[in-house]
């Protein structure tokens, strides 16, 4: 227990002490929300799709979780570079516990940020129907957070330095986000795009959060949950395995 807690606490302390991290964390989602939301709003309405902001907010919330959790997972590379990783790797604590502590820390921060983004979106007209739907959305956010923290951990466990980092940000995070239905509706997509979106686990997270908050699921609550839970289980297993094999 002690080890998991202290790993978790460390993530939180580092996060709240870094002002630039805080600003960056909210800047990006807000930019996407405002620029896309107000930019595409009129077209969306003309096409008879209703209010774009209401549609977009769950997507931006999911994006916030994705960005923060993946980069927390990847923080292992920083720890390796600055040397601190060694301290945790030789400790008389099973690596699984270290990994769990890190994952929970990353997930906590991701959820925290997503909730703030959700709160801020209330100012641009978004409405959360009731506590019940918020809690369901929260559950989906937790799944997204666990999946991508674990994915980040798995990737970072195999990387020796920063060089691959930018590559991952460009070729993993952005496609995951853009090809998830976060910013466009999933009805009537071209066949290929539809298939790609279906293969992206984030799509089910976005659908879950959006379904919970708007009442309309595209894939359905059950399928969303099933896919997310399975992917989370697999990635957590892979992440813990790779982390347990880290050598320095």
């Amino acid at each position, binding site marked *: 227990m002690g080890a998991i807690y202290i790993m978790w606490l460390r993530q939180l302390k580092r996060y709240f*002490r870094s002002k630039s991290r805080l600003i960056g964390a909210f800047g990006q989602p807000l930019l996407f929300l405002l620029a896309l939301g107000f930019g595409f709003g009129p077209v969306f309405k003309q096409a008879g799709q209703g209010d774009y902001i209401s549609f977009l907010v769950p997507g931006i919330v999911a994006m916030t979780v994705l960005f923060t959790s993946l980069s927390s997972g990847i923080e292992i590379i920083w720890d390796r570079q600055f040397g*601190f990783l060694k*301290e945790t790797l*030789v400790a008389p604590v*099973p690596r699984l516990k270290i990994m769990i502590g890190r994952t929970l820390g990353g997930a906590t921060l991701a959820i925290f940020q997503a909730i703030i983004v959700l709160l801020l979106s209330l100012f641009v007209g978004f409405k959360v129907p009731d506590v019940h739907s918020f809690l369901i959305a929260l559950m989906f956010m937790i799944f997204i957070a666990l999946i991508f923290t674990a994915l980040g951990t798995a990737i970072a466990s195999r990387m020796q330095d920063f060089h691959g980092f930018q590559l991952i940000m460009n070729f993993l995070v952005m496609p995951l986000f853009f090809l998830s239905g976060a910013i466009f509706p999933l009805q009537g997509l071209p066949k290929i795009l539809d298939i790609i979106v279906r293969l992206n686990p984030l799509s089910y997270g976005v659908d879950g959060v959006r379904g919970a908050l708007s009442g309309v699921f595209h894939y359905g609550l059950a399928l969303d949950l099933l896919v997310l839970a399975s992917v989370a289980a697999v990635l957590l297993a892979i992440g813990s395995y790779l982390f347990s094999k880290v050598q320095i």
Partner: protein
Amino acid sequence: MISIKVSKLTKRFKRFTAVNNISFSVNEGEIFAFLGPNGAGKTTTIKMLTTLLDPSSGTLSLNGADPVKEKNTVRKSFGIVFQDPSSDDELTAYENLEFHGILYKVPKKLLKHRIEELLKFVELWDRRDSMVKTFSGGMKRRLEIARGFLHHPKILFLDEPTIGLDPQTRSHIWEYVKKLNKEEKITVFFTTHYMEEAERVADKIAIIDHGKIIDIGTAKKLKKDTKTRNLEDAFIKLTGHAIRDEESTPAENMRMRIRARNR
């Protein structure tokens, strides 16, 4: 009782052999110095003993457990001060020690007491609430040494602990190490480039160069073997020209040919 046992240990990185078939053992309660020029393979050996790196071949035993197969058991038996920085820059000095104490399950009361004692010992008590990133190199080093002394393990690894420290601090730290060794029978395995430290502190010394142990024994024995009057001269004689010339034996030539062929 034997505390550390290494036999036929080898570590290859791709084609480069960093540690080449070394064997030695350290008895419980002994202070053992592992000396060698830069790149000799000291840190690599320590990494293998401390479960950070798996050997290419050979066997290891630490306090009776195998660092390859019984990593968790082994991790319970040692403490280490790394050669490279390993504290969290964005935590305070106090938090770094607290973090360590919790990972190592030091009882709460004892932990508080030891943190205070050690921070005072390394003269960082006044700076305990400063972020480590604001520390000078020597201050960071002192903090990491304090951290290494925080839980009292059976075996303590110190990889160039005194690097970058002033002479007063260095001698303080060795006094402390000797005290721990005597009072708690802690086995100490250290590396250093300061020969007088090794001569003064170590019960047994091994000299390693190019991944191979060239000589091992008390400082007295090493001096006798090389017919020198101090350890520094013995070291230079062993790792300088003499031994390497001697090593250009047929075996060495063959190894070089094999290496060339593998390229």
